[in-house]
């Protein structure tokens, strides 16, 4: 504990400024809502967007200059900053998406915005956590904010139900996580990642091996829940369906990214231990997640449930990358970079797709059945084209970021020699084509229905356009982003 007193607080403030600023912004928003009775969503939104752009820029500058530094509780390396960038972009787009929803649902905008900000602070804590406890704290901050946001559709029973379900199951998962951390403490006498990483189990300490294996199993269950890996995914469709659509987008993109960050840190810290059967476990987890996610998605007629199962499937593809990155213990920069790239790609296309779903909603009434999309191409060609591009990207069709991402993941898996898993993954991609094309069929091949299209707000259009442009541009020229992602994972510290 001595080290804490040696902390260079100036340096720490400089490194953790994004987190501090976001937390400060969130609290000021709450104060504003306490002192000023009138809600001013437009002003709040404008200020927040500017602030987030500034923080985004600052984080990027930090990414460029950072020297990896760990101070027991928090660590700062390019990996954590690159994940920060992903969640900040997510936050930016989600704020744009929810501008309309906030004014329509009668919720106070400042509260919603503040909760989003707190969730992102939690995510950043996960990225920068050098200690299992800090990671746990981050997960809890993130999750609690998400629980509340999920239930923020006033008077809609389904939203409450989703929040309750998410809360109960999520708390259960947190218990697993905490128990796993406790068992890890039992083995090493410390909860820091560094101590886990320097751990080497001698052959005779079989008791410790059992403890550690159990600890890892509990941690995997807890994190598997957060990333919605099969068989811990059952909450996802219900919660995604019940939550307000911008919140769903936030959960699908941001929460999943942060949870993967936690998973990656822990897996990489403990990956060197031969006693833990990492490869078979992750292999099976990813195979199950991909296959079941995709197969169940085939039967969905509700766009948010469909996207929920697709997000389960994407967690499976990401796990393919994690499995490949762990192979033969010499971490492949390219493969791990591919995982980071895919997290960004996945976030963007998911946000875009949900953005279109938000745009389809009308005066608080959400439009979520696939049949509501019939003939959209004739009524609103831009929305139809945008959703088509996002779906093609999720299906992994070339010239979109989704293809580039899958390419990097599968290339890593082939390099590591996981041919079976790669073939399973590409066959899954074929299955996914079938359900990703279902909305396209509705939008383009079927006549319009008598549904009145809502007027579109500019922030919403800006968000969808931003996603669309990035998905296409980075789909055709992915190398800069990939090199950045690869750079991010070169000097991992614990």
């Amino acid at each position, binding site marked *: 504990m001595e080290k804490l007193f040696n902390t260079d607080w100036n340096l720490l403030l400089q490194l953790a400024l994004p987190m501090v600023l976001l937390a400060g912004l969130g609290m000021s928003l709450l104060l504003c809502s306490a002192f000023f009775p009138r809600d001013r969503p437009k002003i709040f939104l404008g200020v927040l967007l500017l602030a987030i752009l500034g923080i985004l820029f600052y984080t990027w500058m930090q990414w460029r200059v950072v020297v990896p530094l760990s101070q027991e509780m928090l660590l700062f390396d390019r990996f954590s900053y690159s994940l920060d960038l992903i969640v900040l972009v997510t936050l930016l787009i989600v704020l744009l998406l929810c501008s309309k929803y906030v004014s329509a649902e009668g919720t106070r905008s400042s509260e919603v915005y503040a909760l989003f900000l707190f969730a992102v602070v939690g995510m950043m804590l996960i990225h920068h956590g050098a200690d299992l406890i800090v990671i746990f704290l981050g997960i809890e901050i993130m999750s609690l904010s998400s629980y509340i946001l999920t239930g923020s559709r006033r008077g809609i029973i389904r939203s409450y139900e989703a929040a309750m379900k998410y809360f109960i199951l999520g708390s259960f998962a947190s218990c697993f996580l905490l128990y796993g951390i406790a068992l890890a403490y039992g083995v090493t006498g410390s909860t820091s990642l560094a101590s886990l990483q320097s751990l080497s189990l001698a052959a005779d300490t079989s008791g410790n091996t059992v403890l550690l294996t159990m600890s890892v199993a509990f941690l995997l269950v807890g994190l598997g829940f957060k990333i919605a890996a099969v068989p811990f995914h059952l909450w996802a469709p219900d919660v995604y369906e019940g939550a307000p659509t911008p919140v769903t987008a936030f959960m699908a993109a941001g929460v999943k990214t942060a949870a993967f960050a936690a998973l990656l840190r822990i897996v990489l810290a403990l990956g060197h231990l031969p006693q833990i059967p990492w490869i078979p476990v992750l292999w099976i987890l990813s195979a199950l997640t991909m296959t079941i996610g995709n197969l169940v998605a085939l039967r969905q007629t509700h766009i948010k449930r469909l996207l929920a199962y697709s997000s389960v499937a994407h967690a499976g593809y990401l796990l393919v990358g994690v499995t490949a990155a762990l192979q033969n213990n010499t971490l492949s920069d390219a493969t791990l970079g591919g995982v980071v790239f895919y997290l960004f790609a996945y976030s963007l296309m998911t946000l875009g797709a949900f953005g279109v779903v938000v745009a389809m909603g009308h005066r608080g009434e959400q439009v979520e059945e696939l049949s509501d999309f019939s003939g959209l191409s004739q009524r609103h060609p831009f929305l139809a084209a945008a959703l088509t591009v996002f779906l093609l990207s999720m299906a992994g069709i*070339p010239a979109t970021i989704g293809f580039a991402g899958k390419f990097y993941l599968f290339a890593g898996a082939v390099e590591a020699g996981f041919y079976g898993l790669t073939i399973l993954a590409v066959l899954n991609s074929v299955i996914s084509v079938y359900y990703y094309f279902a909305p396209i069929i509705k939008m383009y091949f079927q006549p319009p229905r008598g549904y009145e299209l809502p007027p579109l707000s500019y922030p919403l259009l800006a968000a969808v356009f931003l996603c669309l442009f990035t998905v296409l541009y980075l789909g055709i020229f992915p190398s800069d982003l990939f090199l950045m992602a690869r750079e991010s994972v070169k000097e991992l510290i614990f």
Partner: protein
Amino acid sequence: MDIFRDHLLTWIIFSPLLGLVPLFLFPSGREKQLKGVVLALSLIPLGFSLWLFASFQGTGAYEFQEMVPWMRGYQAAYQVGVDGFSLLLICLTTFLLPLVLLATWNDVHRNVKGYLFFFLLLETGILGVFSALDLLLFYVFWEAALIPMYFLIGIWGGEERIYASIKFVLYTMVGSLLMLVAILYLYFAAGHSFYWGDMAALHLPRMTQIVLFAAFGLAFAIKVPLFPFHTWLPDAHVQAPTGGSVILAGVLLKMGTYGFARFAIPFFPEAVRALGPLLAVLSVIGIVYGALVSMVQVDMKKLVAYSSVSHLGFVVLGLFSLNAQGVSGATLQMINHGLSTGGLFFLVGMLYERRHTKLIADFGGLATSMPLYSTCFFIMLFSSIALPGTNGFIGEFLILLGSYQTHPILTTVATSGVIFAAIYMLWMAQRVFLGKVTPKNQNIADLSLREGVVLLPIIVLIFWIGFAPGFLLDKINPTTEVFLKTKTEKISIPPSPVTGEGRGEGGDTN
């Protein structure tokens, strides 16, 4: 002019996209003018490719190479080049596209902008497939060509279009994604390079070759389509709009046969020795099966579609004969089939525009009411059944000549396909054109000037190739020689002038 000459291939691939500009500029409601402008712009790629054809040396190596790094981190580059195989297919693509736009002048009324948009994207995709020398680039174009065709079938297709279009996509995706895994394997085997030459220079163990060949072969066999992977084709063809059918039969299917010639055979000589006979058998089954099924069709479009299965069987048989006549004949036959089947689809489409039916039973005695149309139809038909004097004869004759040397028994069986073709085609023609004019067919208008302009270039080429195929064979033959040498000796490929020893070394490898 240097900016054009130095990047001629790039101009060809991307100049179709120039046609997208008027799509965004024109207000809706002026479809006629828009079509005219896009048609005029579609002559630009044709002009470029004629220039390419004229200045193509025919050395057997890749010409007009260009290389720009593309995906750093993984050594993928924008690398393109043409040889005898791809040159003709590029020209065929740019030749057919203006005709397609002209032919569907009155056909498409709904969402004209979208129709043109997807056709132009499709053209760029196909041209990219035929010019890519980087396997990842090839894959990207290969998949990218799939999506516009999907929309063309799905939006402007017939009654069963949704089923047909999704079937088309799923079949193609299964093959191509497995091919992607094989490409990735080759990338690492070739020392981090996607360049064609580096992969062709590999010496892989026999079993590996067979597995990889199966992955590539499945993708190409589905695309060709080879029996038993052909079931998507009749559905897609029958549902597709006329223009879509023409491009599908004319060039899209050639992506499969081209893939065999360019990648699968040169990369895996051992596997070809092991599995070549199997593919020859499948192609002969396809020839006979396609012909027999054609015979019982009641729908003209479906008949032409099944005849494609039969004809492309000949192409694959020629490729796997692995001798000069067979391979050159197969390459020529790819072009011939594009002309004759493309022409037949045009003609069926014109008839459909007039009568809104494609059923053979609905017609009769058209020769009396539509003499010009019937003449054109018979010319295409003769080309399709390989009558001497037409282009089809040269191609099929060369193929049979070549394949007889390697597979005498199979070739004998395949020859029956030629006879069957004559039977089903002539029988169909007899029912549609000859005999007494039924009342409903009495007053059909004959070919208009526009339709004549569509058909005339095809007819000219049919006879030109039929009587003097030298101007094409001269371009093909050197490439065939290199192809056969590569296959038999696995010699080192002539190093590409742009990259020297290939791209494996240097750059930013991991």
